[in-house]
């Protein structure tokens, strides 16, 4: 018993055990990313209105591409700003 406790302190403690990222489109079965829904697309933007990387959102490449085109379309139609501050 004591031995096991000792081993625990010898190895470095895992500080962050965060849940695994996943692609929300695949998980929820969303097949089409709508450019008209600006509120939804805002989830993939940062405060300056820039797109967040896949590294952070966890999107699969297929859907990251679709999100990118949707965001660009929304920007053209003035549903989303190209540049801004404090969007959220």
């Amino acid at each position: 018993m004591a031995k096991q406790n000792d081993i625990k302190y010898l190895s470095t403690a895992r500080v962050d055990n965060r849940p695994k990222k996943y692609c929300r489109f695949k998980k929820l079965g969303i097949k089409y990313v709508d450019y008209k829904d600006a509120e939804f697309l805002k989830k993939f933007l940062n405060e300056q209105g820039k797109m967040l990387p896949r590294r952070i959102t966890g999107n699969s490449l297929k859907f990251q591409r679709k999100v990118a085109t949707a965001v660009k379309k929304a920007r053209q139609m003035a549903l989303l700003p190209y540049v801004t501050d404090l969007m959220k």
Partner: protein
Amino acid sequence: MATETTETKLQSYELMVIFTPVLAEEEYKTAQQKFTDLITKNGGAIVHSDAMGLRSLAYPIDKKTTGLYWLVEYQAAGNVNAILEVQMGRDESIMRQMITRLDKYAVEFNERRRKGIKLVHTPKNVVETEEEEA
């Protein structure tokens, strides 16, 4: 032969137009009618037309901060879009327009959206987790 294939294969499109906010209610309606007629005259069919009305723009266009949005979903042959774009480009009341080609998922999505169902969830994973980015 070529004409036959274009007639049988109608593609779904979606057109979003931003009119200038200075238009009166009647002018707004006549402008919409003008382009719906243009689509139907060229062998297209209107699936749904939605006058979204006055909305604020995310950034100013032509020194205007609001715009009259109009959204129309239609089925037409591919050559109709070129005709439409020319006519829209000539129209002074249009600030911006965009035609999007819709795939089958998009058509499905739009139908569902009109009925008021927000999102579809596949039965296997109905886990609503709003993972917010840091």
